[in-house]
């Protein structure tokens, strides 16, 4: 039985799991009229987990015989997923009521998923990383199929589950090969083993490739992105927003751990892989998005492209690059979740209005929501004075700094290309007359409005003064 203080490194995950269980138990006990309390409980749990992450960072270092390492980077990722989870819960309350979905299960699944992502952030051992990934993934598989009566949602869940399991198998293969080559699963031990002359480096390179398949799937990097549009389209919109931000960030945390801490010596092998993945993701994502008319599919392809931008930063393999990637993930969390939540409200009961055409004249019909969506889209384009701009700026600065001029130029051209499809949405919203049979605007629920205002505020503030976030992240990047 570990001492109390020894539990501190895993405090956030403990809080989240306990809270999730509590939500499930109370779900059965509470009457239908008081289910809203569950949401409040979930929010409180996530808040406490965030505080717990900061507390555990007071005693950084290894714990549980080196299976867990609390450091600034881990704390950053834990806080990031907590914030995203908080906003998701707050923003999906009205959605769940509108679609009459079971609230308790939803919140509990989000909490468990966050616990898994927290584990991915702190784990410094391959098996625990894998466990965290699975906890997070299983919850998100269920969340994807949460619209039980919607065939598309069930299909999405199945697809996500099958392809996800397949990718996980690759990942496990990678873990096994790593163990075979180095005789270790702890990342620091792997690193030490790689320094020994008798380690088979080509086996490690193969392992890295397999690990990258698994992680690439989770961050929806091309060529492992095929599931993304279908899953995002089928999943409930708030879940799609969540999927594109929190699990992605956690998977990137895993990439950071495994490759940068675990096997830096194999960098000559995995850097070109990252390079190719980055370029492919940006290109496939942006070209795919050009043709989309469904707003959720469009955002799905855009999220593939954005994964590519983050990969550019990792390809740089410098502190600058890691800082840029972390900043970008935070920024992306706000703007993309915000966009998906606006979509979730505009889609109306049963998510009927998802076609680009349904947004015609939105600027006149619902000026506030249209302005918010416009802000998120401009940030996704990377227009200055929005957070997205600084995100891209840091990424491409890191790339140029690391001598990846061509990748930077191709990435920048990609982001210019991306402007086209985001603008298409703006065009429909502001430059077209509303359709005569356009649905009457529904009142914006207070919780959702608060979520959107927070996201928009963060997008604007980080667009003018990113300094504090960057300072914080730099502390994290220098682990």
């Amino acid at each position: 039985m570990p001492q109390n203080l020894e539990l501190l490194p895993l405090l956030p995950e403990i809080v989240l799991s306990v809270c999730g269980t509590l939500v499930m138990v109370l779900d059965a006990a509470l009457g239908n009229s008081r289910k809203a309390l569950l949401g409040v409980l979930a929010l409180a749990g996530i808040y406490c987990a965030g505080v717990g992450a900061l507390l555990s960072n007071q005693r950084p270092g290894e714990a549980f015989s080196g299976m867990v390492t609390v450091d600034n980077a881990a704390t950053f990722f834990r806080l990031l997923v907590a914030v995203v989870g908080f906003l998701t819960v707050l923003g999906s309350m009205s959605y769940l009521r509108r679609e009459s979905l079971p609230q308790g299960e939803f919140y509990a699944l989000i909490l468990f998923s966050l616990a898994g992502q927290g584990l991915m952030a702190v784990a410094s051992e391959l098996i625990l990383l894998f466990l965290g990934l699975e906890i997070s993934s299983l919850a998100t598989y269920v969340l994807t199929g949460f619209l039980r009566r919607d065939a598309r949602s069930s299909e999405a869940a199945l697809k996500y589950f099958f392809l996800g399991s397949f990718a996980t198998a690759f990942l496990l293969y990678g873990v096994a090969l790593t163990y075979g080559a180095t005789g270790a699963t702890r990342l620091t031990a792997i690193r030490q083993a790689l320094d020994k002359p008798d380690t088979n480096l080509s086996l490690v390179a193969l392992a890295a490739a397999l690990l990258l398949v698994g992680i690439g799937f989770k961050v929806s990097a091309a060529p492992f992105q095929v599931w993304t549009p279908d899953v995002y389209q089928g999943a409930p919109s708030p879940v799609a927003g969540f999927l594109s931000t929190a699990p992605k960030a956690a998977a990137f945390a895993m990439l950071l751990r495994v490759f940068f801490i675990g096997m830096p010596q194999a960098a000559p092998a995995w850097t070109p892989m990252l390079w190719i993945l980055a370029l492919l993701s940006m290109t496939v994502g942006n070209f795919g998005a050009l043709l989309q008319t469904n707003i959720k599919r469009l955002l799905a392809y855009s999220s593939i492209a954005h994964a590519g931008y983050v990969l550019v930063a990792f390809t740089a393999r410098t502190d600058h690059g890691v800082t840029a990637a972390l900043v970008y993930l935070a920024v992306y969390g706000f703007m993309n979740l915000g966009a998906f939540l606006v979509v979730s409200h505009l889609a109306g009961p049963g998510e009927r209005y998802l076609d680009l055409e349904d947004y015609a004249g939105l600027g006149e019909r619902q000026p506030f929501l249209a302005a918010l969506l416009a802000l998120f889209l401009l940030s996704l384009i990377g227009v200055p004075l929005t957070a997205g701009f600084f995100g891209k700026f840091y990424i491409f600065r890191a790339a140029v700094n690391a001598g990846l001029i061509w990748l930077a130029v191709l990435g920048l051209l990609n982001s210019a290309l991306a402007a086209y499809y985001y603008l298409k949405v703006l065009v429909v919203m502001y430059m077209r007359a509303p359709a005569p049979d356009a649905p009457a605007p529904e009142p914006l629920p207070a919780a959702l409005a608060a979520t959107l205002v927070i996201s928009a505020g963060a997008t604007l503030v980080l667009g003018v003064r990113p300094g504090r976030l960057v300072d914080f992240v730099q502390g994290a990047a220098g682990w």
Partner: protein
Amino acid sequence: MGVLLNLVLLLPLAGAAVLLIAPRDHHAMLRRLTLIFSLVTFAASLPLAFAPVEAGFQMETNLPWMANPPIRYHVGVDGISLWLVLLVTFLTPICVLASWRHIQSRVKEFFLFLLLLETGMIGVFIALDLFLFYVFWEVTLVPMYFLIGVWGHERRIYAAIKFFLYTMAGSVLMLAAILWLYNASGTLDLPGLGREIAAGRLALEPGQQTLLFLAFFVAFAIKVPLFPLHTWLPDAHVEAPTAGSILLASVLLKMGAYGLLRFCLPLFPQASRQLAPAISTLAIIGILYGGLVCLVQPNMKKLVAYSSVSHMGFVVLGIFSFTQLGADGAVYQMLNHGVSTGALFLLVGMLYERRHSLEISAYGGAATPAPGLAALFLITSLASAGLPLLNNFVGEFLVLQGVAETSFGYAALAAGGVILAAWYLLWLYQRVFLGEPAEQVSDRLTDVGRRELAAAVPLIVLMVWMGVYSKTFLARISASTARILEPMELRVGSPGPPLTAEAQRRRGTR
């Protein structure tokens, strides 16, 4: 004095903020508010015209914005940019007047975007930090995109997207180059970079310099626009509402030319020299091609748009002649073009408001029912065609003289553009205003009203002033262009073509 410049930058922004909270249905009030804010901005910017004649930057404000990367809010003006700032603040009230009746839907948003655009444009001309410059450069993009796309004509959406993507494609390359420069020098401060280069601490290899030059150059050339990157311009102009066309032609195109002068030449002198022949050739092609297209253009706005391609060719030609006269003429021509082409678009907009057609064939004999409008149009056309005593003459003359110092052939070819301009503009005037008025023309063609006169007359006054007494402007311009040209020639290994005795004498006296 630095406070003043910040005030000029922020006043339109404050106006936009006021508009944001103003009630949306009081159209008259919204218009008046915008007019007041734009006039106050203009008044605040007037002292710039009396700034001391100095070669370097003045009225500087230099505050830290961010520590890492070291981005500073560094603004200031020199003899070139102060006139461009004045051009912006001068034209914005005119644009407000031009949109008074023309804009009837979503009035609040329109004027909001107009004021945001004003801040962005002023920012571009006063930013002395590369990053700040890029921010303002991009910030102008969004309001203009909406001005074209929401309040434009039939094919507005196509034009708006084309405008956005062309500019964006150019500017991301510029961003890459800015990042590279920062990486090599550790600073984003423009004067700082200039010092590094002058001291030889930032030595770029020729190959690198050419690539970086091109990255900046393409962004600016798209904006100018230089042939063959001009294809977005006719679309954007034709589809934009009058105010959009005026600002697009008068100011946004100048941002490109200004960028060439402010960044390309000082930062990459060797590459500028090396590529000057190719660029000059493109400029001349643009001058002649633009003029020839104007001759066959049935649409008035498109005609004026192509005339911009032709006129802006002179500016580029002047800049890349690397002569004092050429550069002075180029800057002067930037201002001239802003005034006279702005006026042309304003007058074409007035015609459109009356007859809802931009086709030349829909008019004829318009001078009979609208003599005042005809007179304004004639003066503007003559100014644009380069009639002596009017503004364009001075600019074109200086450019041609400067170019002739280095290459007589270029000057001779470019002079063809002047002849073409007289041809297509006078012919345009003849077809629209002269002859027997057709029945349906005189029906709806009323003469200019008081509001329209208030918009047009200041422009006409300026055309005459700039044509007769160019000294007001040129003293400050020359001081600053000389400063830009000076290090260029010191640092070039092989000096340019030998200077004529006349030019040497001129340079000696400066």
